[in-house]
């Protein structure tokens, strides 16, 4: 972990009370939800992290709080650095402040996280589903959402699947 990242992480620790861990040369900084927007603006303005390359979430299902981690992966083009911020979100309080004010890419990425995980982002200009149909029930990428696996039709089970298969009339 080279020194510029180390300085940034120290500043984040005092300002946002963040903890951090490291794996394979990558730094993951844990920030809680209310501090995330100003740490993003701080990183973008002071430290030239001008590209938010990844905004996604991970579902640790059986573990209730924090059930989700929302991940912001920032890249700085000038210094060629990258830093990952992780925000733990509890299962009972799926609310997050929106980052569209800081990065425009957050607009679509947050809609995708809402569509796939059900985490609402307050203040989002267009809080609709992006990938699934408007009337889709449930959030597919949650661990408790079934994969929707249908038994494939081979020769030995051809007849009984043929009866169940919804062929179109005309």
């Amino acid at each position, binding site marked *: 972990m080279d020194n510029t990242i180390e300085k940034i992480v120290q500043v984040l620790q005092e300002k946002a009370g963040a903890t951090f861990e490291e794996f394979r040369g990558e730094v*993951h900084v844990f920030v809680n939800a209310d501090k995330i927007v100003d740490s993003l603006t701080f990183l973008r303005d002071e430290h030239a992290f001008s590209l938010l390359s*990844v905004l996604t979430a*991970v579902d640790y299902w059986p573990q209730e709080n924090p059930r989700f981690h929302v991940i912001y*992966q920032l890249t700085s*083009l000038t210094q*060629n650095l990258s830093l990952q911020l992780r925000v733990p979100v509890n299962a009972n309080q799926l609310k997050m402040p929106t980052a569209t004010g800081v990065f425009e890419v957050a607009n*679509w990425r947050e809609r995708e996280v809402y569509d*796939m995980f059900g985490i609402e982002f307050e203040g989002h200009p267009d809080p609709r589903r992006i990938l699934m149909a408007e009337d889709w029930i449930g959030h597919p990428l949650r661990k408790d959402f079934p994969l929707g696996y249908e038994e494939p039709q081979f020769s030995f089970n051809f007849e009984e699947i043929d009866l169940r298969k919804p062929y179109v009339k005309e």
Partner: protein
Amino acid sequence: MPDYQLEEVAVGPYKHLVSERAVSGETMLLNMGPQHPSTHGVLRLLLELDGETIVNCIPDIGYLHTGVEKNMEAKTYLKAEVMCDRLDYMNPLGNNLAYSMAVEKLVDLDVPPRAQALRVILVELQRIASHLVWLGAFGLDLAAMSLFLYCFREREVILDIFELVSGQRMMTTYIRPGGLWRDVPVEFESAVRHFLKIYPARIDEYEALMSKNPVLQDRIVGIGKMSAQDALSYGVTGPMLRASGVDWDLRKARPYMGYEQYEFNVPTRKEGDTYARYIVRIEEMRESLKIIEQAMNKLPMGPVNSDNRKFVPPPRSEIGTSMESLIHHFKLWTEGFPAPKASIYSAVESPRGELGVYLEGDGGPKPYRVHWRTPSFNNLSVISLITKGHLVADLIGILASVDIVLGDIDR
């Protein structure tokens, strides 16, 4: 016109996006929908038109959502790689490389130098093939019908090389974690040399046909301007970002697979309009040729797969003789290899931009979470910004220059 019908109809999910002139019926809401010749796949653009000029353009994606990220969580690391060919179907080998590098970074697996050089050659060939399909579709959208046929003629030569190497034209799954599926056949060298010999003349042919053509110049010069600041804020990467003046190419900034040995320059332009994006991609094809040339000259001999038997299945010849290889073979092909309980992010430069894989393992043989950071998703989100005030005919040119692939966007 009965105003109430427009009022109630426009009130639908787009009410907060369209201007109030649409509700009063002055501007027209038109679907440039999933089935359209120039949306390069199933993308729906809801256009709010005032006569011919676009007041507002609302993209609606998801018509090709295949749930790949969910499906990969149900397969082992090796079987999940079959899914990633179908993501960005113009760049299957690039997807394989992105996924294989992510797995190699997660389990700390080494790749022998010969495999690295072959990976670079194949990925650059795939970049040229992807740019060829883009150039064909770009010409087709701007009514240059013959260019489409020329581009696909060259693409067939590249696809023959892929078929020679892996047996499949497009969905090869040839680049595996730890190296390649098997070594390239003997004829690979002459096939690539043949392509390198005929191709530069073909690019000049396209340039002669398209670049200096005044009809094309009028249609795409100064259309769809995008400033570098907007591009970075919208997360745009790849040729679109380089056409707006930002010199950011992952092959130069963070060299992987031995890219630092080859010198090539990264074409950038300042204007950021459709013509600049067109020129940047044409130059990129020439740079890729240089890389392939140097890589072919310095192709090292040696093994193609890493000899770390924990993750890479042993060659079949060894299975007959040594007991450990049989055990490794059996374990890897039935249950797969366990990965540490941690998460990594590794990115590759695909023909459309930064293609990143966020891979999280949970100690078991199946990936816990695979998120594909695909470039077309962000590149498309700029479309509503850069098409404001243009004519519908310009939108066709802009959308063709953004070079989106719907499998990449909807995953």
